[in-house]
């Protein structure tokens, strides 16, 4: 096997040094009754070429562009990824390194993450960002737990328009804790209805997503005012599409205490849902309550600038059960990809690209509206939007799949109160012709 360098001669020499007769004799500390009785039943080892053939065959069973036109967003978005990002990320000095425990030989990773943290604070309008969490869902769960630690309150409020799968993760994380999760309903405008929210002083935080799961942009300024009517309650903004902040006001400028969400849009392939990037940023005052790794700037003994993992007294390897989180491995390479992507776009590029994304979805939304379909929410959207199709649309949906078009995602399984409602997405990768074709197909 080409990954195993030992010759029979090497093995014999090494066994002699150790003073045992066979490889099996190395395992004498495993008691006889603990030894495995049967051989591993695994497929016969494939050559590199057999593996390529096998994997290409499996990949060919997947519906992806350019064969298929997929109008699903819902927390995983199709964006062009510059070749530069792919090539630079393939530098194996980056991808075959461990967590930078020895900073003198990890400055590449450390500066890259420090820059990622910096660009993230600028994108989200907050003071400090961590080196990443697993995904948008666990970022949110950790943010809610953080607000409970800070306020010592036992109740959180989260919008029903936060990604339904994120809310499921929150429920899982919260199950053994005894903390209460209150869900804020959906208003007629497709935004979070906060009118019923009272006794703010009992809530550790209120969390909303913007743009929300329906693509609608939330009125964060109004939320902020109400939430901060109690000085301790934290305002958490979740997101699935950070590119939106290329044109929209960012969470920090609207008074968010914590912004957390999914960064897959920033140069990371969808890869059937992972690995993505949990982004996490907060106001400076909450720095020591944050979960996750942090890279900080410092000096070496000669006074040269360098970087280290810092504030580790928050972390599990020092604080053990009193840590701010149990996270150890994060999504470091994805954070590096996101920084590379943000660097290729730059301030000028991200504005233009975000505007283009907005235009594409707005075009498709307008087209469907003109074709007579109901657009139930009259609220500005980014990248995706809800449309109500006729009752018999299920048949059309199936029919379109056979024509290699995936016309969005049904909202009904997660929102039974919205039958026949679908969530459609169009980013910069969607051509006008494909959108025109979709509308032609659904109207025919």
């Amino acid at each position: 096997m080409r990954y195993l360098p030992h010759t029979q001669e090497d093995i014999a020499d090494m066994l002699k040094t150790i003073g045992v007769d066979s490889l099996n004799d190395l395992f004498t500390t495993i008691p006889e009754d603990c030894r495995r009785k049967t051989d591993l039943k695994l497929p016969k080892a494939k050559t590199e070429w057999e593996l390529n053939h096998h994997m290409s065959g499996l990949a060919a069973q997947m519906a992806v562009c350019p064969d298929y036109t997929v109008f699903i967003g819902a927390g995983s978005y199709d964006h062009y990824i510059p070749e530069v990002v792919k090539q630079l990320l393939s530098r194996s000095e980056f991808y075959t390194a461990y967590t930078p425990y020895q900073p003198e030989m990890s400055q590449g990773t450390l500066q890259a993450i420090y820059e990622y943290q910096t660009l993230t604070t600028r994108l989200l309008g907050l003071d400090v960002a961590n080196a990443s969490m697993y995904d948008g869902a666990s970022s949110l769960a950790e943010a809610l737990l953080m607000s409970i630690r800070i306020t010592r309150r036992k109740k959180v409020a989260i919008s029903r328009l936060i990604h339904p799968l994120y809310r499921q993760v929150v429920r899982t994380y919260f199950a053994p804790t005894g903390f209460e999760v209150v869900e804020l309903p959906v208003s007629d405008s497709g935004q979070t209805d906060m009118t019923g929210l009272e006794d703010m002083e009992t809530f550790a935080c209120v969390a909303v997503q913007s743009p929300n799961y329906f693509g609608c942009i939330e009125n964060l300024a109004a939320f902020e005012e109400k939430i901060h009517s109690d000085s301790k309650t934290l305002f958490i903004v979740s997101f699935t599409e950070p590119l939106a902040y290329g044109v929209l006001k960012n969470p920090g400028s609207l008074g968010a205490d914590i912004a957390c969400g999914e960064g897959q849009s920033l140069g990371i392939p969808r890869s059937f849902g992972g690995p993505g990037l949990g982004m996490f940023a907060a106001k400076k005052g909450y720095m020591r309550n944050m979960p996750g790794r942090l890279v900080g700037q410092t000096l070496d003994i000669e006074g040269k600038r360098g970087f280290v993992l810092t504030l580790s007294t928050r972390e599990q390897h020092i604080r053990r059960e009193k840590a701010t989180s149990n996270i150890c491995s994060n999504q470091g390479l994805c954070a590096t990809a996101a920084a590379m992507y943000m660097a290729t776009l730059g301030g000028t590029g991200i504005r233009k690209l975000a505007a283009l994304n907005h235009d594409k979805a707005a075009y498709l939304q307008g087209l469907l509206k003109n074709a007579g379909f109901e657009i139930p929410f009259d609220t500005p959207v980014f990248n995706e939007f809800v449309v109500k199709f006729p009752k018999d649309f299920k048949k059309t949906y199936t029919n379109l799949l056979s024509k290699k078009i995936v016309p969005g995602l049904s909202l009904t399984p997660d929102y039974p109160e919205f039958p026949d409602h679908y969530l459609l997405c169009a980013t910069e990768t969607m051509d006008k012709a494909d959108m025109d074709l979709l509308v032609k197909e659904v109207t025919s």
Partner: protein
Amino acid sequence: MKEGVGTTGLILNEPFLWEKGKKGRMGFSLPNNDVPSSPLVAELLGEGPDFPDLSEVDVVRHYTRLSTWNFGVDSGMYPLGSCTMKYNPKTNERQASLPGLAQAHPLLPTELAQGALKIMFDLQEHLAEITGLPAVSLQPAAGAQGELTGMLLFYAFHMMNKERRTKILIPDTAHGTNPASAALCGFRSVPVASNAQGVLAPDDVEALMDEDTAGIMVTNPNTLGLFEEHIKQISEIVHTKGGLVYADGANMNAVMGMVNMADLGVDVLHLNLHKTFSTPHGGGGPGSGPVCVTKKLEPFLPVPRVMHVKNRYELSYDFPESIGKVHAFYGNFGIQIRAYSYILSMGDQLKTASQLAVLNANYLKESLRDIFHLPYDKPCMHECVFTDKHQQAFKVSTLDIAKRLIDYGFHPPTIYFPLVVQGALMMEPTETESKENLDDFIEALRQIVQEAKDNPELLLQAPIKTKVRRLDETMAARKPCLAG
């Protein structure tokens, strides 16, 4: 004497991204707009982020230079204990980047995602075969999330029996993530000391285990690199009191094909695909931490589960006792592909990999025992733990030895862990290092030990060949500067 690999060369400085570039540049090929522009209302518009404007060349030079300040498994030997820094096969990268897999949307109708679902299903089957535990969830995104998932399973299991157990036994050799993960589920950790032989004694477990204790979290082989030889008896003790046994599988690389975790009485085990199954660690992640469980705990696994029904792969949420979800989608699928690719490339030679990993570790142990203090003198598994006891006379410590190894061109071992060993040097060579590499590493350590006697200043000043020298970590923590 042979010339070592550590040398110096031209290293290029590189400023911050935002110190480069000029307003108006762009490193991105902006698509043409083929639809009418549709302005947003003014009150929603922000200023946009203050990002530097860079050309494509600016970005390429920047990251290429940064990469040369780094050291990876591709650069050289990386014997970081408990981290299993084995070679990351290149073919795995090819498979994960196949457009059909890399571009796939996670919410595609399942009939349009059969390839990805087959990979997940087959990988689950293979991990079940390797561990001996029949049911697997690939959802946890890293080892620590696997631990959390395991603890949530403990919680759910006991709640089904109408029990809210509040304690969990955790050996003093455990990873720091274990108590932190248990705490997230409201379990108070009760430390169990390992005995003079570096393993858990059944009597000690028996004395602590009671009906208010949810179970035990064991790392086996443990972080001293020793097999927990009383594991069967310990499992029995825990089970008798209604508890469950969690095994941290971070060290699975020692025992593939050698033990069956179910036979040892393990109820839940997490694996680190980024350790045992060769996926790259990415300078901090992404990893992947599948959990493998007994039939008894299967109903509680995260949803959706990948099912194979009538020649079709499906995702099923129909498990009412499930703990729910720990990841928005199905975990780090891109990492799962790499582990699948590795297992298909290795086949039953995974057992050989474990044997050679143990061979390499014992070879290091025997070759270094005359120069370093060996706190537990018995055959080790895939890693061995030394201390700096013999070097203290020369006023040099584990940290100095580690830093000097960098000058010699090696990544240092894990240091000062496990905590039960003072001044620990924890070495895990892995099976992909050749005898020559091990011999070079041994020779480097011999020279360093000699330097400690003759000229300890060389160690105290180390590293001297790196782009930066020792860094002021106290300053970093006292005056945190986390963004530029």
